[in-house]
């Protein structure tokens, strides 16, 4: 028993959060292999260690809130513009104050008050079976058309990606159209929502539905997967960027900002500058098939094959104001 106590206290001592001058500490919703590679390069170049806690965004925000008296994180990173704006509104961030960062992104993409910056973009695309769909849908609205009854695959309304999509429709077209759309899609569903975006694409390949909604980078991941079934699924569908005739395809942002009261502000800003540099933005496109958020980064071959598209940059900063209403609508129409 005694030796056990000794072992435990020794082990614990190793994990006590000690203030180390040369590190940056992240609370992040994304910790893909690609992020690890980027962080390793950052450490190699700057000598600054990157320490990470990965969990869901709202859980991390709760933790940040509970730590207000003694902030532990330097940088908060998530994968949804609405969450970023909501966090900014709640006073989670402090301005990064970097001029390098300020000039890097297309107008209107980063937070206007300099609280957070985008790292990558993801487009919410429609995929359609190459075999069974000769005239694929051109807009999100088409998915609510009765001709697709029993043929649409889309994940649950708990998914932040779907909440953001409906929030963008709310912002651009108003409540009545948003309700009608959600209702129409709900009635067209091939099955009650389940699984992730990838499962929807696989569902189309297996014949369960004809069209599905997925984030663009999942298609890239399927294409480069080590599982032949994934690659076959990707090959069986065509990719459509919706709403090209009007406001553009709904895109969402993965990004982050410096946590208020952070202990390593300078290092955090350095990491943000590193991530949004041309070299690393190109690397992200290569590794995760996400789109670069910084200006002037050419798409990869995989992305070029999907075709060019116009992103909807008009609604991005209206998502957070509309998310709650979007959820109400999901609940109202019974979209699980």
């Amino acid at each position, binding site marked *: *028993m005694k030796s*056990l106590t000794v*072992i*435990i206290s020794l*082990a*614990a001592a190793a*994990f006590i*959060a*000690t203030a180390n001058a040369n590190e940056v*500490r992240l609370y992040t919703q994304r910790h*893909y*292999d690609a992020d690890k590679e980027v962080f390793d390069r950052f450490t190699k170049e700057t000598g600054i260690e990157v*320490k*990470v*806690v*990965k*969990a*869901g965004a*709202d*859980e991390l925000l*709760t*933790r940040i809130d*509970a*730590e207000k*008296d*003694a902030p*532990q994180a330097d940088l908060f990173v998530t994968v949804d513009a609405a969450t970023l704006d*909501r966090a900014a509104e709640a006073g989670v961030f402090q301005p990064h104050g970097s001029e390098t960062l300020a000039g890097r992104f297309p107008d209107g993409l980063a937070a206007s008050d300099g609280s957070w910056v985008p790292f990558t973009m993801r487009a919410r695309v429609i995929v359609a079976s190459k075999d069974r769909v000769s005239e694929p849908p051109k807009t999100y609205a088409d998915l609510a058309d009765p001709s697709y*009854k*029993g043929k649409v695959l889309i994940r*649950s*309304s*708990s998914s*932040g990606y779907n*909440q953001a999509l409906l929030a963008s429709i709310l912002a651009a077209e108003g409540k009545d159209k948003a309700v009608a759309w959600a209702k129409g899609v709900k009635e067209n569903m091939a*099955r*009650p*929502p*389940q*699984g*992730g975006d*990838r499962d929807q694409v*696989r*569902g189309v390949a*297996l*014949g*369960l539905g004809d069209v599905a909604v997925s984030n663009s980078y*999942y298609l890239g*991941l399927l294409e480069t*997967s*080590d*599982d032949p079934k994934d690659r076959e699924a990707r090959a069986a569908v065509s990719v459509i960027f919706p709403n090209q005739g009007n406001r553009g395809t709904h895109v969402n942002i993965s990004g982050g900002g410096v946590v208020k009261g952070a202990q390593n502000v300078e290092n955090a800003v350095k990491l943000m500058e590193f991530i949004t540099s041309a070299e690393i933005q190109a690397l992200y496109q290569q590794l995760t098939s996400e789109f670069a958020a910084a200006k002037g980064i050419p798409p990869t071959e995989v992305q070029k094959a999907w075709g060019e598209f116009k992103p909807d940059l008009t609604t991005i900063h209206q998502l957070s104001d509309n*998310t*709650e209403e979007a*959820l*109400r609508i999901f*609940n*109202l129409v*019974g979209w*699980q």
Partner: protein
Amino acid sequence: MISRVIFWVACLILLLPVGQLLLGVFAPVDTESWEQVREYLLVPAIWESIYLTVAVCVLSLLFGVPAAWCVSRFQFPGRRLFSVLLVLPLAVPPYVAAYISTDAREALIPWLVSIRENQGVEAFLLAERVHRFSWLSVMLAAVLYPYVFLTARAAFSGTGCRLADAGRTLGSGPWRSFFTISLPLARPALAAGLFLVAMETLNDYGGVTYFGVQTLTPTLFKTWFGLGDIESARRLAAWILIVILVLRFLEVRFRGRAGFESQRRPARPTQLPKRPVLIACLIACFGPVLVGFLYPCLTLLYWLSRTTGPDRTEGLIRATGHSLGLGLAVTALCLLAALVINGINRFVRSPAQDTLARIASVAGYASPGSVLAVAIFGTAAFFREVPFLPEFVRPWLISGSLLWLVYGLSVRYFAIAGQMTREGLASIPRGLDDSARLLGGRPFSAFIGVQLPLLRPALAGAGILVFIDVVKELPLSLLLRPFDFETLGTWTYGLVDQGLIFACAAPSLAIVAIGSIGLVVVELFLLKRS
């Protein structure tokens, strides 16, 4: 007097986060989103929870009871082996059991598509729902039934066995003796096992969301994440907790004085079954092992063989170390707390104290992991504000210090240690205490000298269950962990989250292997003693 103080302090420490959570029922909430929860989400979620819990409980009985009956009543080749194998599914985390069925479920999609083509959309939707729900229930039951199996086996091989033998000698047939003697006698044991199964089912998040079944736990998460409303989520969690406490109370009341004795020397089965019974025995024993252990393990091994990509061995070894360390620390703390609380409760008799001990041993287990984590954040913030703390204590109080993770896990899994120790103590005759006291022993030395040795099997069983649960645990570890701290559970989650389903095989197998080794050791140790 000192012992009373120790008792109250120990219970208070265990109940602090949950108490804070319960206060959430009275806290003012943004009524609009709470109204929404009530109007749209609550009723369907309650129904889905009831369907799923009932289905998993019934299946757990089907998996667990016949197998327990066979290994405790009949002498057949492979009996001892099965007795150990039947416990092993406990080492498979429910979320892993859910993931591994993906391939099999996808294989059935063409069948579903043909239903839609031939019988229309309505029939398809019904078939799809039944198909999904059945898979989920079977997979959950397949890894949770050991709770029922363990308690049922103990009951069948104790008094139940001897009375059933008596019944047989008086001319009742095997079926009659099972249904009229053994089963009623085992009822309290089955209820205790089913309670654990129901808790695990209600608390599951990974599995149910993967299958698109909206029970109360995902609803709670939806309230929290979707509506960004932690207060409504806490209120919901507090209500779930209250309902569970009431159910528990009713179960205990209903059980009355009928305790179940898990620690008596079990009678050795002597009956040699005839051929048809032997076949039935083998099926009853092999079926659950096949679904709950072999199927997950073989699937994971197959995935492991197909894993490509970067070498993750180093991370895996570190995560294994963290899981083992956490498991040991939490197990030690839980056992210690269980001994202190139950021991004092035995010597200092008071109804108020007894009620408190009962509540303390259910509360943490009954609260959803993530919500408990939030409560722990609150506790941590509370302690940081305590004035005049010595400086060296401060670093420990930062949220993200290992202290809170160990504390959170201990609060959650104390229930298992607390209850098993309690049942263990209850089966030690009071007369022994009195004899020890008569011979001049003080309560403490009587406890150390007399009860502790008798409690050993119960403690070993409790310890291993706590240990395995900590190794499998996800939400608390995910949320309370320090920087760059991966356990096997969080590692698995991270890989599945990236869609690296093959790569998640290695940490999943490590969880299963650690759990299995522990279970085998305890099973052999316990069996040897008997």
